[in-house]
């Protein structure tokens, strides 16, 4: 079920306040986020984030196109390269 419109988008208050703070002072610094489900709002424009994917911090510079997406969409949690060619040998 989709989220109730009444509530508005899920934006984590901690991250939002931090960004507001930076916007007021005009500071730019990298913000590290664990909240992958947090929606990116227009206030976040032009900020640098690092999103945790369970292992590493994935850098993200927020542009207009990112608005409305969630942080997690830009930090994949799985890293599938490809199956090795001698996979059958390895199994034996």
């Amino acid at each position, binding site marked *: 079920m989709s989220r109730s419109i009444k509530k508005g988008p899920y934006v984590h208050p901690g991250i939002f306040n931090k960004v507001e703070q930076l916007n007021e002072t005009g500071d730019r610094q990298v913000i590290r986020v664990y909240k992958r489900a947090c929606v990116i709002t227009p206030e976040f424009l032009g900020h640098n984030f690092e999103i945790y994917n369970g292992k590493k911090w994935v850098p993200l510079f927020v*542009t207009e*196109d*990112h608005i409305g*997406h969630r942080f997690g*969409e*830009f930090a*994949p949690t799985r890293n599938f390269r490809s199956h090795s060619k001698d996979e*059958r040998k390895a199994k034996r």
Partner: protein
Amino acid sequence: MARIEGVELPANKRIEIALTYVFGIGRSTSQKILNRCGIDWNTKTKDLTVDQENTIREAIHEMGLLLEGDLRKEVTLNIKRLVEIKCYRGMRHLRSLPVRGQRTHTNARMRKGPRRQAVAGKKRPGKK
């Protein structure tokens, strides 16, 4: 023969169905258009008068529907946007895997294409 939005012209079908041959018009949009024009859904396309054809064209125009080339363009642009921002959905499109969280262990053949055949010489003599 009716020609609407470029190249569409199925003749022997009921107009309700015939209109759905246009990319961007499905059953419900088709019915909305016909209601607006006051045309019976069951009229065959070949039985339409020229006037009726024109009212359909006008109705489509007035409803401001996005059809055919423009609609296709919008869809590809949307996909391109997703790929460009490197979000999860974009990456799934890029790899032509299912985008909406379906399983890929089995199925997902629509996106993955035909099954790749098992490798020849699987059973080797002298080995288990």
